[in-house]
């Protein structure tokens, strides 16, 4: 019963919190650029407005893929916050991502196809880091369950610093922040129209937006796990990480896919793998 309640709480709370986070993001970005920025509720207004618009599509299936994307993102988050298996959560996240990519492919549009290819490259770039982070947490806490990892009494950050930095690195990709926002970006200055989401409009674009809210909350939950020994420090660290990501977003221009994949893999190998091997040798 408590699990069902937790899922419900996440489905409602996750969305609201994600939307607020997005509003906060926009204000923060505006302030960094010496603008005032929109009200914090702006993302909700945007989504409501999108819902009200007529959906223009290239084919009927697009909406289906996007709906699957949203459903699987919510499922992923629910799995995570109920305390389920971390590896399974990562796999569910992958499934969700692939639905979005398939939606982009299905339109047979040049812009969204390139967006889809780049999204896949991004997934290829971040996947090892996420898996290795899960492996590291498992090695320390002896469990893949989020509930067990979250209730681990010692600070995970102290034993997994390398893994933490590599997660921060790929978090930039996952949050769709520059310099790694190859497939689609919130900045208007990029060259590929709107990449992945070019052919989505109206309610399907709204679904993508809402899915990102849920996704961001889950990702920050992942960051929180490193500091879960103390909820206050955990929440503070999570907010700090988000502010850092927004700062990076505003500091860099977009980089190439070669750099994205190579740097993510090298950072993961250099920091996360070294960290993992070190703890497996030291903590038997």
């Amino acid at each position, binding site marked *: 019963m408590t699990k069902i309640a937790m899922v419900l709480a996440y489905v409602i709370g996750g969305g609201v919190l994600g939307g607020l986070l997005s509003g906060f993001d926009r204000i923060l970005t505006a302030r960094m650029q010496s603008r005032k920025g929109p009200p914090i509720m702006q993302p909700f207004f945007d989504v409501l407005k999108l819902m009200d618009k*007529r*959906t*223009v*599509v*290239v*084919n*009927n*299936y697009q*909406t*289906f893929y996007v*709906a*699957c994307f949203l*459903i*699987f993102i919510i*499922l992923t988050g629910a*799995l995570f916050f109920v305390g*389920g*298996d971390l*590896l*399974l959560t990562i*796999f*569910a996240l*992958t*499934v969700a991502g*692939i639905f979005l*990519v*398939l939606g*982009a*492919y*299905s*339109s*047979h*549009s*040049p*812009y*969204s*196809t390139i967006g*889809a*290819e780049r999204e*896949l*490259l991004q*997934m*290829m*770039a971040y*996947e*090892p880091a996420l*898996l*290795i982070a899960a*492996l590291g947490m*498992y*090695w320390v806490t002896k469990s*893949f369950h989020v509930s067990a990892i979250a209730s681990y009494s010692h600070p995970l950050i102290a034993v997994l610093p390398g893994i933490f930095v590599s997660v921060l690195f790929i978090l930039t990709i996952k949050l769709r922040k520059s310099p790694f926002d190859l497939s689609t970006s919130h900045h208007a200055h990029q060259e590929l*129209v709107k990449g992945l989401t*070019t*052919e989505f409009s109206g309610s399907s674009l709204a679904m993508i937006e809402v899915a990102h809210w849920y996704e961001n909350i889950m990702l920050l939950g992942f960051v929180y796990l490193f500091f879960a020994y103390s909820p206050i420090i955990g929440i503070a660290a999570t907010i700090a990480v988000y502010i850092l990501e927004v700062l990076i977003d505003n500091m860099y221009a977009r980089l190439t896919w*070669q750099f994205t994949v190579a740097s993510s*893999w090298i950072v993961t190998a250099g920091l996360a*793998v070294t960290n*993992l*091997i070190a703890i497996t040798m030291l903590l038997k």
Partner: protein
Amino acid sequence: MNQISFLLLFPLAPALLLAFISNQNVRNLIVWISSLTLIFVSLSLATAHLGTSPEFFSVDSPVLEKLFFAGEILLSLYLLWRCRGINKKESYIPVLIILQAGIGIFLELSGKLPKVENAFYVDNLSVIMALIIGIIGTIICIYSLGYMKEYHEHHKEIKDNIRGFFFIFFLFLSAMFGVVLCNNLVWLFFFWEVTTLCSFWMIGYSKTEEAKRNSYLALGMNLIGGLGFSIALVYLTFFAKTPTIELDRLIHMGSALALIPACLICFAGLAKSAQLPFSSWLLGAMVAPTPVSALLHSSTMVKAGVFIIIKMAPILQHTTAGLLLAGVGGVTFLMASLLAVSQSNAKRVLAYSTVANLGLIVTCAGVGTYEAIWAALLLVVFHALAKGLLFLTVGTVEHKIGSRDIEDMEGLIAVKPFLGVVMLIGIAGMFLAPFGMLISKWACLKALIDASPILAVLLAYGSAPTLFFWSKWMGKILSVPSNAVPLESPVDTNEATALTFLAIPTVLTCLLFPLIASVAIEPYISNLYGQTMSLSRGNILIMTIMLGLIILVPLGFVFYPRKQKHVSSYLAGANVSSGSASFLGAMGVVKDVATRNYYLSAAFGEAKLSLASVILGGALILGMFVVVII
């Protein structure tokens, strides 16, 4: 024992019949009847032996021993005779054949061969393998009925040798049953070499120059592996503390005594399952007709290699040699997955993915703990299903659209919906949660992190490109150009039947895998290790929910009200007219939009990675033997 001798001998009957019959209807009838018989008998073998402890059968027949000896000599003579076609570079092949035959004859005539008490056995692993051979093998055989007919209609220049094809096909099934049911290693090795012969014959089917060269490459590499097996037999006869050539005794000898012969046999397994540095033969084998690639080069024969390595797992566990062997598998998984990214030829993608997944199985077997073997067995089952299905679909698609290039499969879902859906099921089965292969990969990760984190890291890195090349293929199938025309010509009934009966279990196994695991896999492991593992109920529930969503959400969309406005895709305002995705080209000509996938050959091409992979694989194998001998 009746079932075993039936499975070994019965396929020879249709083999001989089909070698002489050229009437298509009679051939259809014979293949259908013998396939259904084989399915029935392998199922009855399963019901009799699943979940029970291994059962052994002794055969005390000097005549049979003589027959096997004669068979070995005949086999070598045939291969030597076929060496007429070799070129200078391949002159090592007859040397290997003579060396192997020499060792065989020497062993037989020395009179030192240890007495064999139990020549045959059945345990849960051989039942699993027998089911794969008996069911998936025969389904592929039924598929070949339609495929081979169309093959010769499409390739008039190739000499029709369908009779020979079906003879070899059934001979192969018999030999595979021999490999998984023989406890006598000398006999097992005979069947092993028969599968090498079948593979060699099938790869050379089209008699083109490329086919010939590739068939000799496959023969040569498998013979190198086979030499390892022969040496293992010599070692077991002359140098072992307690000489034996029985598989179960070898396994129970333990790491201290049996590591050298086990590694030699694993070496043969590595060559057979196309692990680095031997992977090139499997890529070359793709010139064979597609059912051959499905049966020999993905579902069964290459599985014989990992089968024997899995058998050796109890000896390998907790040894450095085992870890190095696992390293060969891990490196193969990573490199083959990376190489697959650069391929646009569908069969080559499938071949690289096969090599990669076999690598994963080898990794688990090399680690050899009970968790790892659990994962390895799941991989064997799911891979045989999904990959068999994919190969067959590619074969049919090739005949329908005239190309096996993934780029030409654009919009397949609209061009030929049945084939599109089946192909999507196959691809999803290979890499997407909650389908079989992903469950297995998940189990692998858990098993590997407990044994060796480096291996788990190889898996984490290797699965990333897997995601990339499968998804872009899926995207291609689903990306429907506005001018796509549905294809009229129907799929052959035999082919459609085979595809359906592979596609349904690929989906069903996601629901039934806890059952498969508890009935077939866990008894084998608890029998061997005294303990076993299983997935927690909660996780099974979650995977069922995911599968339910994947199946139900599309159904929901059938009833979804569509108030959507349709437009052509966005071309930055250059669209010629609304409704068609075309634009005015530089010379004022109307052009349709075309999209192409990324293959990134500058980063992941064969020219860049192949040599390094071979060197790495070779070095690890060398390391394994160095460690064992020291």
